[in-house]
């Protein structure tokens, strides 16, 4: 046995390339920049997309050449495929980053403190930007998302548990219906609530009807995602619970669902993401008021998507700025919801 008191070497990662080995890579990056510039300057590859395409071509060629030079044909192919896949992934990110950038640039112009503390009750969308705000819409969206979540998350997770745990009669039919339901156009959900509840009954528009329409849209997303998540739980875990003498209910409640918890929270988040920006189902159900209304069962209720729609169709410079600012607020709210749900899911693991 070697003496344990001897000083040990430092941890190393010999599989990482050394600075010396990276010199060809640095030269390669230089070649990529020069090549991209040359292609854009002297050929038809103009504009942002042209520059991107040139960069992809140059990077693929250079990385393939470098890998092939040092490690042969197999490595060259590997590098070519890796480079193309990475480029396609970046291409997929393009619209996302572009949208976020546009919203940030245009949205910040319409923002001021009062935008969050006042409503449009005494203002018009064409008024100067320091008058009025979307407090009514923020509150309305929050209230309706909360009600829709309270309805569709228990229903959706129960459906998923029926499909994966109880596996009772009609499972296949229910699975098929849930799938079909996720294809329902959002305006149909609004029309359904309108014709079933509002039309001809003497009942007025309010936030609850809007939330019900949103819940119809949210339910299939939650149910399908939750089902996928529960199916990932290993069968031995269920058997382990049952083998300890637990009933199915105790096993599901104490073993299966806790094991799937972070996935179930993801299901809820995806459901909220599905409905947060919906406008169509709210058109026939909420009435889209301009004043702050905290009561979902009495009177018209505004929402951010509705406010965006209303401002956009007005067409003036001020209303456009208001719409972009509202889009920014909506995106920020959705992000906040996502992050807090994620933290909630992690905190109790």
């Amino acid at each position, binding site marked *: *046995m070697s003496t344990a008191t001897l000083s040990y070497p430092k941890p*190393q990662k*010999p599989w990482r390339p050394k600075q010396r080995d990276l010199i060809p890579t640095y030269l390669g990056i230089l070649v990529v920049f020069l090549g991209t510039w040359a292609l854009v300057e002297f050929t038809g590859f103009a504009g942002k997309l042209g520059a991107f395409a040139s960069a992809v071509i140059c990077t693929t060629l250079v990385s393939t050449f470098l890998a092939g030079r040092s490690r042969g044909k197999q490595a060259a192919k590997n590098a070519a495929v890796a480079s193309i896949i990475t480029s396609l992934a970046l291409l997929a990110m393009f619209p996302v980053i572009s949208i976020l950038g546009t919203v940030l640039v245009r949205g910040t112009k319409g923002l001021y403190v009062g935008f969050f503390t006042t409503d449009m009750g005494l203002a018009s969308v064409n008024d100067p930007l320091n008058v009025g705000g979307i407090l009514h819409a923020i509150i309305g969206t929050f209230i309706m998302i909360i009600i829709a979540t309270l309805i569709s998350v228990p229903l959706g997770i129960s459906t998923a548990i029926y499909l994966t745990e109880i596996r009772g009669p009609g499972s296949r039919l229910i699975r098929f219906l849930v799938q079909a339901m996720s294809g329902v156009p959002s305006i149909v959900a609004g029309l359904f609530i309108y014709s079933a509840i509002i039309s001809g009954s003497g009942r007025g528009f309010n936030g609850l009807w809007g939330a019900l329409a949103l819940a119809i849209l949210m339910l299939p997303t939650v149910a399908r995602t939750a089902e996928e998540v529960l199916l990932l739980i290993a069968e031995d875990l269920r058997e382990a619970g049952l083998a300890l003498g637990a009933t199915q209910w105790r096993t599901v409640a104490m073993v299966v669902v806790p094991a799937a918890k972070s996935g179930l929270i993801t299901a809820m988040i995806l459901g909220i993401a599905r409905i947060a920006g919906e406008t169509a189902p709210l058109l026939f159900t909420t009435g889209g008021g301009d004043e702050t209304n905290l009561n979902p069962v009495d009177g018209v209720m505004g929402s951010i998507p509705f406010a965006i729609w209303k401002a956009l169709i007005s067409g003036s410079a001020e209303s456009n700025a208001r719409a972009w600012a509202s889009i920014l607020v909506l995106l920020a709210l959705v992000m906040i919801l996502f992050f807090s749900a994620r933290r909630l899911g992690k905190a109790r693991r």
Partner: protein
Amino acid sequence: MTENVKPSSLASVAAANANRSPGKHALGTGLEARSVHAWFGKNHVLADVSLDFAAGTVTALIGPSGCGKSTFIRTLNRMHEFIPTAAMAGEVLLDGRDIYASGVDVTKIRLKIGMVFQKPNPFPSMTIGENVLSGLKLAQLKQSNKEELMEECLVRAGLWNEVKDRLDAHGGSLSGGQQQRLCIARSLAVNPQVLLMDEPCSALDPGSTLRIEETIRELSETMTVIIVTHNMQQAARISDYTAFFLADGHPGMMIESGPTSEIFSNPKDKRTENYVTGRFG
């Protein structure tokens, strides 16, 4: 030691095994580990292991769980680096050249140093025959007489008679022991110099285990075998050399190594003796 039946029987098993002459047709000059250390993040899990694996020998790595045996075996074909927090120090020499040297093509290293895992893992989308030849396909190696090679590998893995009539069936249709022998046949098809086996029999029944042990004995005619095992009977039956690992509150270390018959009959270190006589571990 006389009052304890088990160690003396182990020692006699090892002694009987020692009569065998290892490695007539072995390839290369074997594998050498030079003061290998391994870390996961800040956690030092393996310290200063130096071991020579002569060509054509079978070496068993024994020791209690968590002593770094599996980590060590994974440093020998550079599978260790797949764990993001992993780090290591030291050298592993194959034919006298460090496999961690810069410029070494890691895929070629793994072609020469094959691995059989604890859990049988035949490729689910391939038939039995395709599984055996999958290494050639994955590494895009040229091979003219594929049928012959497939039969040879399955014969050497001791599986041919059981599957020769259903080479087109899926690997998943085999029993656990058959699946593991299929995985061994799969490793043989690319003709590695060294075969690493990480507890290959831990999930198998005694019959399958015996078949695989016979296979390992035959393999050592043409390659160097390094096997992690918790089964000391197995180590005594099949290995030429044995190395005993122990963590004991410190990073895992190699306590003692030597010819298997000596480790089991006349260990130098008290802790080795305690372990091989079943007093702990």
